[in-house]
C-alpha cells in the first residue's frame, strides 16, 4: 500500500488522470499471464500497488526522489514487451512510461532522439522517410527503442552493426536517487548526437551484454544511431494477417539457399562476412519455415507433423540472405554476383524467395513464437565466434532431448543462427516451446531445463549467453565469467541504488530467489 500522503504527492506530480491504485487497473501490470511462463513470473510476480504515467524527465525525477525518501520500490517499463519487466516486489510502484513518446529524427547527424514510449515500428517509419533506417530487433517492432537498446537490440538486420550497445548515443538518465545526469554529448551541451562522454564512457554503466531491466533508475531520453539506407520507397501491402512490405528489387532482395548441412551453411556465413557483403545473413530454424506458410495453428501442426513423419528426413538447411544496394543498384548487382559465387563454391542451391518483407525491416513477428504451443523461451542468446555458436548448439540439442517432452519436439533443430558484425560474430538463439497448461510435473521439468541445466551447460561450454540474467542464477554463472562479474556488477548496483528500490529483486538476485523458493529446483542445486 502506498500511504495516502505519498499517493497525493505522486498525484500532484503526474496529475489525477495519470495515477491509479485501483486493483482493477493495477492488475493489468502483473508479470503473470504476459506470455512469460517461467518460474520467475509464477513465483515472484506481483501486482503493483500503484501505477503512474509520467510525461517528463522532471516528473520521473520527482517520483524517484519520493521513492528514495520513503523507500518505495518501483519498476519502470515502457511497452512492457520484454516480459522480464514486471513487478516482483510487494507494494511496488509501476512507472508506465508510454506517455514519454517524443521522437525527433536528425537526418543530418544520422540519429533519432526518442522517449521510452517510442516503438521501433514508429522509429523505423520515421527514419525511412529520411533515407535512414534502424534495426528492428528479434523481439518485435512493438518493443520500446530505449528499453531494447538498453537490454538487447539484436536481429538479422544487425548483421553489419552488431548489438545495440554502440548504437546508444547520448542519454538522459534519472538515477535511483532521482538525480538526473546527461551522458555522452548531453554532458557538454544540448545536442545528444554523440555517445561517448568526457572521460570513461559511462554508457558502460547502462548496459553490458545485457541491461539492467529497469533496476538502475530510468532512462528518460535516448539518442540512437540511424544508418544510411537506400532511397526507394518500401510499399506497404496486404491485409492482416498477411501484410508485408513490397521490396524494390533493384535495391533490396531476399535470397534463399538450401545447404546440404549445418556445417556448410555456417561456412557460407563465414565467407559472406569475409566478403563484406549483405545486410542480413541467417539460418532459418526449420519450424519457422512451417510457421511462415501455415494458415492457422492447426494447419501448422498438421504440416509440421506430416513433414517430420516423412522418410527420408529433410536435413537440408535454409540460409537466408538480404542484400541492400545502399550505394546503388550496381552495388546490389555486384553483391548478388559475389553471393552466387559463394553459394556455388559451397554447393548451395538457390531457392525462390518472395520479394516481400514480413519480418525484418518494419516488423518482426516474434509473437508467432507464442502461437506455436502457448509458451516460448530461449535458453541462450549469445554472440561469439560462429564456431562457439555451433558447439553450443550441439550441446543444447543433446540436453534438450532429455527434456522433450515437455518441450515441443523439434527434431534436433540446432537453433537460430545469424552472422553478425560482418561475420566477426556468430549469433545463436536456442528456442524452446512448450504448453503452459501441461502438468505440474512437466512444467517443473521445463523450469529445471531453463534455470539449471541449460545455464550449467552454457557455463561448461564457455558460452556467455546475453540472456544470462533472465534465466541463469547469478550464483552459478557469476564466478565463471569475469571471473566474478557478479562482484563488480553488485558494486555498481550498490553505488547507484544502495537502497535496492529499482526493480527489486533486480536482475542480480531474481533467479537465485526463484531457486530458493522452488523445491523442485533447489534440490538440484549443486553449486
Amino acid at each position, binding site marked *: 500500500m502506498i500511504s495516502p500522503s505519498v499517493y497525493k504527492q505522486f498525484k500532484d506530480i503526474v496529475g489525477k*488522470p495519470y495515477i*491509479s491504485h*485501483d*486493483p*482493477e*487497473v*493495477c*492488475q*493489468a501490470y*502483473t508479470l503473470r*499471464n*504476459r*506470455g512469460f511462463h517461467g518460474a520467475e513470473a509464477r513465483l515472484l510476480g506481483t501486482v503493483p500497488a500503484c*501505477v503512474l*504515467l509520467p510525461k517528463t524527465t522532471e516528473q520521473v525525477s520527482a517520483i524517484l526522489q519520493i521513492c528514495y525518501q520513503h523507500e518505495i520500490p518501483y519498476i519502470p517499463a515502457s*511497452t*512492457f*514487451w520484454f*516480459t522480464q519487466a514486471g513487478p516482483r516486489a510487494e507494494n511496488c510502484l509501476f512507472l*508506465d512510461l508510454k506517455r514519454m*513518446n517524443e521522437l525527433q529524427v536528425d537526418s543530418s547527424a544520422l540519429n533519432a532522439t526518442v522517449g521510452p514510449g*517510442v*516503438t521501433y*515500428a*514508429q522509429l*523505423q*517509419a*520515421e527514419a525511412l*522517410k529520411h533515407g535512414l533506417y534502424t534495426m528492428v530487433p528479434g523481439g*518485435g*517492432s*512493438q518493443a520500446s527503442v530505449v528499453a531494447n537498446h538498453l537490454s538487447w537490440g539484436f536481429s538479422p538486420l544487425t548483421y553489419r552493426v552488431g548489438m545495440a550497445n554502440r548504437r546508444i548515443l547520448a542519454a538522459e538518465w534519472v538515477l535511483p536517487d532521482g538525480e538526473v545526469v546527461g551522458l555522452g554529448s548531453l554532458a557538454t551541451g544540448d545536442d545528444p548526437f554523440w555517445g561517448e562522454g568526457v572521460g570513461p564512457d559511462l554508457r558502460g554503466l547502462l548496459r553490458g551484454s545485457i541491461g539492467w531491466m529497469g533496476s538502475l533508475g530510468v532512462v528518460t531520453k535516448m539518442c540512437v544511431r540511424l544508418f544510411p539506407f537506400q532511397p526507394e520507397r518500401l510499399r*506497404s*501491402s*496486404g*491485409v*492482416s*494477417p*498477411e*501484410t508485408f512490405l513490397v521490396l524494390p528489387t533493384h535495391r533490396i532482395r531476399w535470397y534463399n539457399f538450401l545447404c546440404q548441412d549445418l556445417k556448410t551453411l555456417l561456412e557460407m556465413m563465414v565467407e559472406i562476412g569475409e566478403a563484406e557483403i549483405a545486410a542480413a545473413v541467417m539460418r532459418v530454424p526449420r519450424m519457422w519455415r512451417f510457421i511462415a506458410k501455415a494458415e*492457422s*495453428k*492447426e*494447419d501448422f*501442426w498438421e504440416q509440421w507433423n506430416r513433414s517430420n513423419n516423412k522418410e527420408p528426413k529433410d536435413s537440408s538447411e535454409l540460409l537466408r540472405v538480404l542484400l541492400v544496394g545502399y550505394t546503388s543498384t550496381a552495388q546490389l548487382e555486384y553483391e548478388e554476383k559475389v553471393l552466387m559465387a559463394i553459394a556455388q563454391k559451397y554447393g548451395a542451391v538457390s531457392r525462390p524467395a518472395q520479394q516481400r518483407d514480413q519480418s525484418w525491416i*518494419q*516488423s518482426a*513477428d*516474434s*509473437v*508467432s513464437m*507464442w*502461437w*506455436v*504451443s*502457448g509458451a516460448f523461451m530461449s535458453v541462450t542468446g549469445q554472440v561469439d565466434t560462429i564456431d562457439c555458436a555451433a558447439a553450443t548448439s550441439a550441446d543444447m540439442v543433446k540436453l534438450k532431448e532429455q527434456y522433450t517432452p515437455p518441450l515441443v519436439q523439434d527434431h534436433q533443430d540446432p537453433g537460430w543462427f545469424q552472422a553478425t558484425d560482418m561475420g566477426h560474430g556468430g549469433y545463436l538463439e536456442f528456442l524452446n516451446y512448450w*504448453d*503452459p*497448461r*501441461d502438468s505440474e510435473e512437466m512444467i517443473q521439468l521445463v523450469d529445471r531445463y531453463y534455470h539449471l541445466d541449460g545455464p550449467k551447460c552454457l557455463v561448461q561450454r564457455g558460452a556467455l549467453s546475453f540472456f544470462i540474467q533472465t534465466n541463469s542464477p547469478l550464483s552459478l554463472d557469476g564466478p565463471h565469467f569475469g571471473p566474478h562479474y557478479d562482484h563488480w556488477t553488485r558494486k555498481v548496483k550498490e553505488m547507484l541504488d544502495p537502497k535496492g528500490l529499482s526493480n527489486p529483486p533486480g536482475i542480480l538476485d531474481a533467479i537465485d530467489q526463484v531457486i530458493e523458493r522452488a523445491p523442485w529446483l533447489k534440490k538440484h542445486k549443486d553449486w
Partner: protein
Amino acid sequence: MDHLRLERFRWDAENCCGCKSCIWVDPIYVQGKDYSIRCPSLQRFKFDSYSALGRLKLALAILNGSMKITEKALDIIYQCNLCGACDTGCKRNLDLDPLMVLEALRIRAVAQGAGPPPALAQLIRRVRDTGNRFGLKRAKSAAWIPEGIKPSNRAKIAYFVGCNASYKNNSIAQATVKILEHLGIEYALMEEESCCGHPLFVSGAASEALALAKTNIEMLSDAGASIVLTSCAECYKTWKVDYPKLLDKPTSDMPYKAVHLVELLAGLLAKGGLRFRGPIEMKVAYHDPCCLGRLSEDWTPWHGSRGPNGLTQPPKPYRRGTNGIYQQPRQLISAIEGLELIDLPRTRENALCCGAGGGVLDVYPEFAAFTAQDRLQEVIDSGAQAVVSACPYCLDSFQVAIQSTGHLLKAYDISHLVSLALLGHEVAQ
C-alpha cells in the same frame, strides 16, 4: 446462451502474451509516430487496463474469482468501442479471440446485475418500449420517406433503414432509396421496423438481443425478403454477424443474406451497371466503419475444445478481418470522376473507430468525442477536404467533432456522394 459465456474464452484470456498488437496499428502500416495506435480507449486513458490486454487480465481475474465486477471494472469494460481493432491485431500473429472476451465480459456484467451502466440501461428500455434507440414514436419512423418514392409491398430485397437513418440522418435513407429507384432495383420496406438490436447486444443484454433478433428475422420472412439491405454498418454487422452469433448458427445458415449498400453498388459497378454523371471535385478520405470492415466477416460458431498446445478440435475457423468490406466503397469513390481518394494512415483493418461504437456515444460522450476528434485530425492532416463513411453513426460522430472544432471539413455518407453522382443533385442533409 452458454456459447457466449466468459468461461468459454478462458484460454484466450490466459494466453495473452502482452505483445500489444491489440493496441498498435499493424507495424507494416505504421507511418510514423503519429496515428500508430488503433485502440481508442488505450489512446484516451493510457493505462494498459484500458486495452484488450488489460481487459483480458480482468476477465481472468473474474474467472478466477479474485476480482468482482466493481464500478471500476465496469468502467474499464464499457469504456471500449468494441471496435475489433484489438481482435484483428491479435490475430495477425496469435489468433486469440479478444473481442469475444470483451463481449462476454459485458454479458457477464448484465447477467450478474452489475451492468450495464445506467445510460445503456436507459437505451435498452427505449428500444424495448418504442422499438428504436432514440425513444421516439414509431410513427415518426416513416417520416423520412420522400415524395415520389415507391417501395414495393413485397420484394426479394428489404431495405432495413435502421434507427439512425429513420429518425435522425434521414438523408442517408432518402439517398439510398433514390439510388435504388434510379437503378430500377425493386425493394420493400419493413412495415414496422424495429431497432436491429445492436445497442442491446453491445450492452451485454444478450437475451433481449436474441429475442429482438428472432422477431426481426420473422418480420423479414413475413415481408417475403431473402436479402436485407442496409446503409448502416451497425445494422449490417448485427444482421450478418450478431444474429447468427446469438442464435449459435453460421451466417450461411441464416434464412437471408445481409448486404450493405456499397456491396450492392460495387457489384453493379463491376458489371458496368452504374453511370455516374459529371465530376464532383473533391479530395475525400474514406473512413472504414468498424462494423463494415474488420468486424463484418461471416460468423461461424465453434464448439470444440482445446487440446495439447492449445490446438482446437475440431479446427476453429478464424475471423481475422481479412475479408471485411474494404475495397467496395473505395471502388465506388474512385469511379466517380473528380473525386480524389485519400487513404488515411490508419486504414482498412487498421482504422480507428469513429468513437461512437460499443455504446460509448451513449454512455461516455466525452470519450466518444475525444476519439472522433483524433480521427478528424487524421483526416485533416491527410489533406482531404471531406471524410466519407458508410455508417450514419460515423457520420454523426464526425459531424459533431467538426462542429465543435469549427473546421471547414465536410462529412458525408457514401450514399450522399453516390446519389449526387448518379442523380446530379444533392439529397438534402
